[in-house]
């Protein structure tokens, strides 16, 4: 009681403490700010999207059926798709470099072009191959992402079930192929189902992984040479001469995450845990918004989810020399699982869809949709960053300081076990006392002081009670999940 009083005094600089009544108008929702636009396509064009790239005046879409469709006027009312290439093996990525389209097939990195300009690919070069395939359906090969040094990075899914042609090495690995091709280096081990692989503005390649066995929760992590990401399936390959990852030894099942990070050699904690069922279920592809396509969130990462058919966003900061950050809801309601995302014209994002084999929210099994920014800034929790004793919350609009009272911001945290069973429910869940909440002068930030902080935990910060200064609007989402692996010293 004493503490609550003190808190109230601390955070009511200008206005009386009585909370203002919530306006009774219809509340804005996600669609007020971001429109979902369907791309109409004829029935025979099955776009189970594996990769997308804009090249020349056309959009190119690689599909899980091994086709590449070229679509003219993709953003128009009557897009014109034509079959540009076929006979590839489940390409799950597509980029353009020097006039070639690069894609990862299951067994090779390839590049393709149309030399006689008849609208059909006529030259396909094998840039690199040599990672074997056991014939298991789950041996997906994602990419490429091009790192700052021009090298190509691919992520290799681990198999589930039968391996008709015998067990293959390098499954569950990230591999690097030099810009000129020819060979590959296995650089990171311990991946599970790394559907998203992309490059940060600084040239480092990141990936997303999906919750499952040895992957306690979905995650977003940079790929740095020599790291072990936790899944022991492919670690025997560490003993092969090409491996750039030290053999981690037998991986014990059931360690608390902080313990795993300390004891398993080269174990890499994710930069962002993406809490299962709170923020999607199965993250896919992601892009950095370096241009400010969705202006209030410039610099953040936008990621599609293969199950929940939503795009969520993530903010990152470097703390103690390593990246960490938070994820937030953004836009739900697409028509199928999102495997690939790509920026379109200013203020738009392409979402490539497929849910074949796993199912998703939304009524379709495949297709293309776009998110279109409507130009209105929502009242949102813009970003969570770590401070020495808590977190700093940034908002997209000035807040009504009077709404920042005791229960209006709640902090809960948990951790996970690194173990073999499928996924891990939150462990050691705690409610944290908010011991201080200072609203910045312009009302754009709140500095939270939080009791009992510990590292290697996910912090859920809910600020449903925080109102905007103007019109006393409520937050559109008002929640974020911050992965606190390290704390700033100041």
């Amino acid at each position, binding site marked *: 009681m004493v503490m609550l009083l003190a808190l109230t005094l601390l955070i009511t600089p200008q206005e009386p403490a009585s909370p203002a009544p919530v306006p009774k108008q219809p509340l804005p929702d996600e669609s007020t700010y971001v429109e979902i636009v369907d791309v109409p396509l004829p029935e025979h064009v099955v776009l189970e999207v594996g990769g997308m790239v804009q090249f020349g005046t056309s959009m190119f879409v690689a599909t899980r059926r091994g086709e590449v469709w070229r679509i003219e006027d993709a953003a128009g009312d009557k897009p014109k798709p034509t079959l540009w290439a076929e006979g590839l093996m489940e390409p799950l990525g597509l980029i353009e470099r020097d006039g070639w389209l690069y894609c990862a097939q*299951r067994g090779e990195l390839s590049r393709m072009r149309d030399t006689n300009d008849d609208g059909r690919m006529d030259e396909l070069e094998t840039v690199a191959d040599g990672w074997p395939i056991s014939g298991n359906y789950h041996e997906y090969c994602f990419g490429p992402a091009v790192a700052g040094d021009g090298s190509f990075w691919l992520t290799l899914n681990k198999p589930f079930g039968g391996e008709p042609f015998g067990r293959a090495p390098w499954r569950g690995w990230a591999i690097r192929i030099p810009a000129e091709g020819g060979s590959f280096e296995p650089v990171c081990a311990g991946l599970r189902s790394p559907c998203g692989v992309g490059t940060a503005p600084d040239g480092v390649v990141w990936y997303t992984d999906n919750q499952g066995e040895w992957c306690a929760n979905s995650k977003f992590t940079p790929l740095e040479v020599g790291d072990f990401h936790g899944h022991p399936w492919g670690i025997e390959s560490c003993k092969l001469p090409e491996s750039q990852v030290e053999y981690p030894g037998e991986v014990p099942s059931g360690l608390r995450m902080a313990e795993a990070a300390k004891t398993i050699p080269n174990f890499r904690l994710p930069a962002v845990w993406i809490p299962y069922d709170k923020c999607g279920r199965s993250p896919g592809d992601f892009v950095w918004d370096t241009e400010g396509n969705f202006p209030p969130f410039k610099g953040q990462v936008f990621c599609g989810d293969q199950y929940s058919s939503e795009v969520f966003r993530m903010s990152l900061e470097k703390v103690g020399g390593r990246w960490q950050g938070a994820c937030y809801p953004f836009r739900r309601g697409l028509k199928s699982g999102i495997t690939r995302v790509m920026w379109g014209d200013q203020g738009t994002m392409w979402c490539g869809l497929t849910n074949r084999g796993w199912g998703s929210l939304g009524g379709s099994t495949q297709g293309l949709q776009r998110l279109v920014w409507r130009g209105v800034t929502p009242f949102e929790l813009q970003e969570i960053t770590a401070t020495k004793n808590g977190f700093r919350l940034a908002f997209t609009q000035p807040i009504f300081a009077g709404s920042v009272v005791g229960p209006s911001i709640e902090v809960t945290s948990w951790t996970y076990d690194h173990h073999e069973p499928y996924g891990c429910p939150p462990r050691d869940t705690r409610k944290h006392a908010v011991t201080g909440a200072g609203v910045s002068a312009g009302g754009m930030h709140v500095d939270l002081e939080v009791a009992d902080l510990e590292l290697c935990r996910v912090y859920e910060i809910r600020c449903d009670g925080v109102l905007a200064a103007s019109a006393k609007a409520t937050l559109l989402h008002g929640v974020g999940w911050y992965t606190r692996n390290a704390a700033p010293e100041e």
Partner: protein
Amino acid sequence: MRVSLCLLLLALAACGDPKQVATTPHVAADVGLLTVHQAHCASCHALGGGLDAELRGDAAAPLASFATKVDAAAGLPDLSSHFSGFGMSTEDASDLRMWLASLGGERPSRNAAEISGGAIPRGEQLVRELACGACHAPAELELSAVTDHAQLTAFLAKPERASVAVPHVPLTGSEASAVAAWLLREQLQEGARAGGFGYEYYELKIPNGDWPDVTGLKPKARGVTDKIGTAVATRKANYALQFDATLEVPADGEWRFATRSDDGSWLWIDGDLVVDNAGMKPAARKDGRVSLSKGPHQLRVAYTQGGGGAELKVLWAGPSLAEQELPGTSASTSVVRLVPKSVVASAPTEGAVARGRAVARAARCDACHQVREDEFEQLPAPLAAKAWNELKLGDGKCAVPAGPTVFEEVGALPPQLALATRLKIALKADGCLSCHVRDGEGGLPPAVRKHLREVEDLGEEGLVPPDLSMVGRRLRPEWLERVVREGHKSRDYVVMRMPPYGDAKAKQYAELFGAVDAADVVDNEPPFSAEAAAHGRTLAGIGGRNCISCHTMSGRDSLGPQGMDLALQHQRLRPGWFRDWLLKPSSLRPNTRMPSLWLGGGEQDAKDADAIRTWLSLGEAAPLPKGVVVDAKSMVLVPVDRPILHGAFLKGVSARCLAVGTPARTHFAFDLVKPRLAWIWRGDFLDATGTWHGRAGKLVEPLGKDWQVIDDFTIEGEPKRRLLGQRRTDEGYPVVRVACGDVRYEDQLTARLAANGSELVRTIRCEAGTLVLRFPTASSYRTLVQDKPAAQHTLTAGQSLEVIYQW
């Protein structure tokens, strides 16, 4: 047991009915001979010449086989018309039954059967659609009194004797069961319903949380269970269950149903979905409410199991009923009981048996039926029967009272039968004319015909079996033989079925039809050229003569009615008929739906018709015509205008392959791991389901025919081969580029049409270094270089080698 039952039926079918003979008003010469045949005159009288064998007919059933059937009290078997044909009185017939009963044998036990209530109407529908009435009179057999459901089903599914006057129309096990249920409908026990839930168990890949389409899928198991659950499944993953029952709801009011399942489940009451518990998920409960009146309601529960844990529970609660698992006692399947009448064993008196034996002796039953030798030892032998041509009217007593009339009307027999007469007798005797018409004779009675079901709008041709007039001119002898032997049916749209007659009859008919209809026909196949084949394909397609508007092609749908598959016609029809049929169809078959597409009938028209025949002569390799319907939703890949390329895991090859399907319906596949040619085949290309369905990754095998696994060339020194990539030609063919050591080469295949099929042309071009290839000798296909078997060949940069694959 089964033997004696079927013999009873067959005996009924095979024995001529002498009474009928007597009432025939006028006997033409041929028909007279048929009468001689049907009355089994040859069993007693020598006919002379080649006629004895021709006219003797099929053997009748041994009399001992009737012993276990006899129910003297009930007057069974009721062979009254057969008996009276031999001039027997009712008393004679009764005594005869007593004697038959004394012939011994073990009486089979007859058992009650539980069958689906839907089986009886289904059986009736089958009997009508398959035109059983063409041979059987509506109430011909009192089967309810002489057999049970299991025995009759077994007989209908597989009679033990074939090739008699009532040919056996093939039935599946469930069809036989339904037909048996209808035939035994008098055994239906009113009000008898078995408890429990009927279920069907399907094994199939469950790709997601939706109810899979099981239409057309054969259940792995079906039965009745008293508990809805997963216990009836026989594996742990990838299956679906469907439970059906009539639910006896005890009170009016609101009822709550719930399912708890892992993975998906659904519950319908009277066809309305009440609980939707779909999804791939751990066990979860869903509820639904529905207002129901007291009394029976139809319940259906469906369940899917993908993988992992499996669970299914169904609960209900309602007025004054606390929630509980749905018990089998409150439900009844729609199962009904057929209860056979018990067999009343006759107690034969010695006198009656002796009298019956004498009746049989006098009627000469042993002339047709096999009788144990000692049975008639004590009785005086009847007078020896004279040879037919020595008979005179009033000579003596014929065992068949109508015999003298037959004799009088037939008169003297010719020393041998003309071919046409032989054919006619055979057609009649084998029951062919019960369904088919030939030269205006035969065909279905109107009462039977009116129940036939029409599938395609093709008029008379789509409804009844084909007219056999001129069939020997129409069909190739091999095809005719196949149709008769296997009961092969080319007309998918005719619901009636052709019975198989076996090899001997097949050869006989192929010969007779050919000799009678086509003795003077000289047929020549048009000479092959690839140009003619291409022209034929164009003519068959849209923009040509549009054959594809009404005919299917290689199993692909046409645009309109699904007329007979064009791909069959080359092997089916004789060349002369084929040309005539295309040019003037209605002169060969008035009122045919086949339009006259060539009105002139000049030389060019004949060339067109021949071009279509040349195209069809390619068989499996015949390219599909424009307009053929390719189902966009099907994952069966169908190249029509361009090659289709498909990257897949190929079974026994590798996990990194490229399969190429061509419009010439001649296909090949490369292994890209060690770049090499792996397979060649013809016909249908590939089903992409293994690669395109679910998370895929099934190992793929070719569809189609003529599949050859290639033992590919070796390269001298065997340096490791490395895939450099692929070019794609303007036509869409891949050119695989390979490096091995210092050598680089390109490898390309294209399909080429050739007489009676197709061949593959492989071009290997050396780009750098010196390539020394060695082709192994293969047994099942030929590799030719300049018409000689491929052996060792050396290529320097810029040189090419053309290898022809024939098989």
